[in-house]
């Protein structure tokens, strides 16, 4: 049980970092964006976004600013820090190695 969450969590971190790499987004928009881009394959449990975001912020990978949202309310926008950008690159590379390896095994074995 614990094990599974951890893997999911790691993946969620990667997805969040990638999603906000282009422009600052608030929490709800991040969830929407992941859902849209993955064509509804990935359903993010909305509540679990926030612990993940705060953890990333705590580690200094993400920073946040309050600003007006698209519906003109005060919302907290998350963006990547320099360290976060670096982290995104390493996690992305790790992920690609991993998925290639798994794909290879699945094809040949």
């Amino acid at each position, binding site marked *: 049980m614990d094990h599974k969450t951890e893997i999911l969590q790691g993946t969620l971190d990667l997805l969040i970092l990638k999603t906000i790499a282009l422009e600052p987004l*608030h*929490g*709800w928009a991040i969830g929407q964006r992941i859902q849209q881009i993955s064509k509804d394959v990935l359903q993010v*449990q*909305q*509540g*679990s976004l*926030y*612990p*993940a975001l*705060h*953890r990333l*912020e*705590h*580690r*200094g*990978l993400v920073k946040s600013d309050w600003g007006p*949202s698209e*519906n003109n*309310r*005060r*919302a*907290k926008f998350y963006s990547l820090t320099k*360290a976060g950008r670096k982290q995104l690159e390493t996690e992305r590379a790790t992920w690609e190695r991993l998925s290639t390896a798994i794909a290879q095994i699945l094809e040949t074995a």
Partner: protein
Amino acid sequence: MQWLSAIVNSFRSLLARRREEQALSEEVEFHIQRQLEQNLSAGMPPDEARYAALRAFGSSAAVREETRDAWGLRSFDVWRQDLRYGIRMLGKNPSLAAIAILTLALGISANTALFSIVNGVLLNPLPLPQPDQLVTLHESKPNFQTGAIPYLNFLDWQSQNRTFSSMALAKGFAFSFTGLGEPEQLRGLWVTASFFGTFQVAPVLGRDFTPSDDQAGAAPVVMISAGLWKRKFGGARDVLGKTMTLDGRNFTIVGVVPETFDLRVWNDQASAVYAPMRQWGHPGLQNRLAALGLHGIGRIKPGVTLEQAKADLERIAANLAAAYPDANRGTTANVVPLKQSIVGDVRPFLLVLLGAVGLVLLIACVNVANLLLARSTSRTREFAIRAALGAGRRRVIRQLLTESVLLAMAGGALGLLLAWWGTQAGLAALPTALPRASEIRLDGRVLIFVAAISLLSGILFGLAPALKTSRAQLHDLLKEGGRGSSAARHRAQGTLVVVEVALALVLLAGAGLMLRTLAQLWKVDPGFDSRNVLAFGLSFPPSLMKASPAAVRGYVRDLDEKMKSTPGVQSVSLSWGAFPMLAEDDWTFWLDGQPKPQSESEMDWALHYVVEPDYLRLMRIPLERGRFFTNQDDERSPYVVVVDDVLASKFFPNQDPIGRRIRLNGDDRPAVIIGVVGHVKQWGLDSDDQNTLRAQLYESLRQHDDGAMTILPTVGAGVAVRTAGGPGGMIDPLRHSLHQLNAEQVVYNFETMDQIISESLAARRFSMILLGAFAALALLLASVGIYGVTSYLVGQRTQEIGIRVALGAQRRDVLRLVLSDGVRMTLIGVTMGILAAFGLTRFLARYSLLFGVSATDPLTFAGVALLLAAVALAACYIPARRALRVDPIVALRYE
């Protein structure tokens, strides 16, 4: 660097907690609102839209909880919870908390006090710039590693060395200061010009000495201590340029030395005046044979090791030995770190004491662990319920450790106060037992030490009860109805008592051995009778500085007469050179009829006493053969000497030394031995036997030649007086008589011979008193521990005892039942303690802290074992008596 950012953010979250909580709420609200809007625009009815938004988000409380975790506050929250709970639990049982805190405070304060001493004396660097570069310099001779340096040799060392940035020479001296109020004696140093420069100490006022001040024919100048400046000159800035009269000569004050410069390497008191070496004008300064008690100080260049510096000086010394074989053959150089020169002697004492005081704290911890174990009985239910509610084992241990660390911290805080007060009081009572005593204070390192030992002891005494409590099976606990797994706990408590009895025995054995050592030392015959003998120093009046030899001889006779005619004075002798346990002087000689040895180092050495005829009778040194000096042995009569039995048996084995001749180095006349006297323990009661230089040689002051008589007024002399009654009361009458003889006559440093002997044992007595105090504390704690456990067991067995009494058990049976546990624990503890002490007291012997008693002295061991057993049994007996009073009816009804 992510961890750093995490720590910083944790703190920030902690400080801005409320604001962060609000921000999180707003963020969550916004999210749900946004989802609601989307649901509405997708055409959902408002109620359903709201419900769907909430469902999609999940439990908002759980999200918040989990997010807070991300801030790194969770462990802090738990800790705060534990702490609050712990304080409440301690408050529930205040007497237990008080006993535990007090016990720990005693242990921690003793450790803190001792550590602050060790810190101030051994660990802290000397309060001088770059103190690690400072060393004392010595000329080492075959029989003495740390000898004085002849001035001319020093000048060569100074000019030829490559490893020192600076070096200087100093000579302790007593100046008589006249012309400003009462004449008084000032401690001072003759120093070479580079003295303060070597220490890198700058004057607070005026200037340092320059090389031109330390030249023959230079105007006499002096630097004074800040203390003297304030005391005698009111701290006025115009003190510069004023003159002060020292030994009848006018010196111009050029500088004031900072108050912080309080160096006591060559004087046991701080110096008040400093004057250039060449102003001393001692003829011996131009003689490579005369060391004159000149001690060197040096600052090693940065990056140069002690060994390199030593090798450098040894090279120069070897060259000097080749160039001046008469004076320097066989001598070389030695370098000792300054700190070691100052504190070397007390190091072993302090380390042993630090070990001993650690044992006291260990016993205190064991006691508190026992208390907590006993209490854990009443808390088994509490923890069973917590466990039933899902508390893990780690969580329980954590709670219990929080409580014990809390206790330890309270004990540490109280202990710090006790230590601060105790150290002040102790140092005030024993001011001379320690070097650098004025530097002992509570600094950051001591505070860290207190915090560390408090934390450590909290974990130490908390761990056993915590593990024990947490291990208890939930199921069993609830089944036993709260009485807990009592058998296991009894075993743990018994073990702890055994441990503390053993530790107490080790300390008692150490203290016992030190006590026996002191007792043995007091029994040692010093070779003279110290009772009713007063010793003091005497500086001649300035008017005699350039007097004729005949005038000096006349003045010496007047001194003798005047002192002898003082009521209460029985006999008087001036003393030059060595004096038992107080002053040291040696001389070289060879046997008459043999060729004069090539160099001084090939001659024979003897301790050299120059005294007057009354000396032998005064000190009550036994005359073994021949006669001692009389008034007829003067400058016109044949040259005679007296030797001690050590010299006699070493150089004239199986012969009668009376009538034999020896030749003293530097004197053309052969000296005839006229008497043999008993050996005097010059080097102290404890170490005289081990010293290589023990032969003793006496000369009569009156036989000294005219040259010596002109030097006498410039260097002063010692005086010994035998009094009819208590010598302390004779100080003022003597001072008065001498003042009558000459108003400018200065006398100083009155000490009774008993005091001198007692001071020679000061470091031992200091450590004996402390070790004894620690042992007493250990004994007290151990007996409290035994008492506590025994009374606890009696309480547990009240019912059993009641049944036994009801069934006809006699008082004796009940007593045996209760005492047997205590006796068993005590006996095992004492046995283990003896074994441990056998191992540990060897350290006392290794640091040569023992004298006349072996490290495993059976008498001491048996004595302390009996003492401990008796106290332990007494501690058991009190609860046992309570057991005797158990009323069977009450005991049975109680269930």
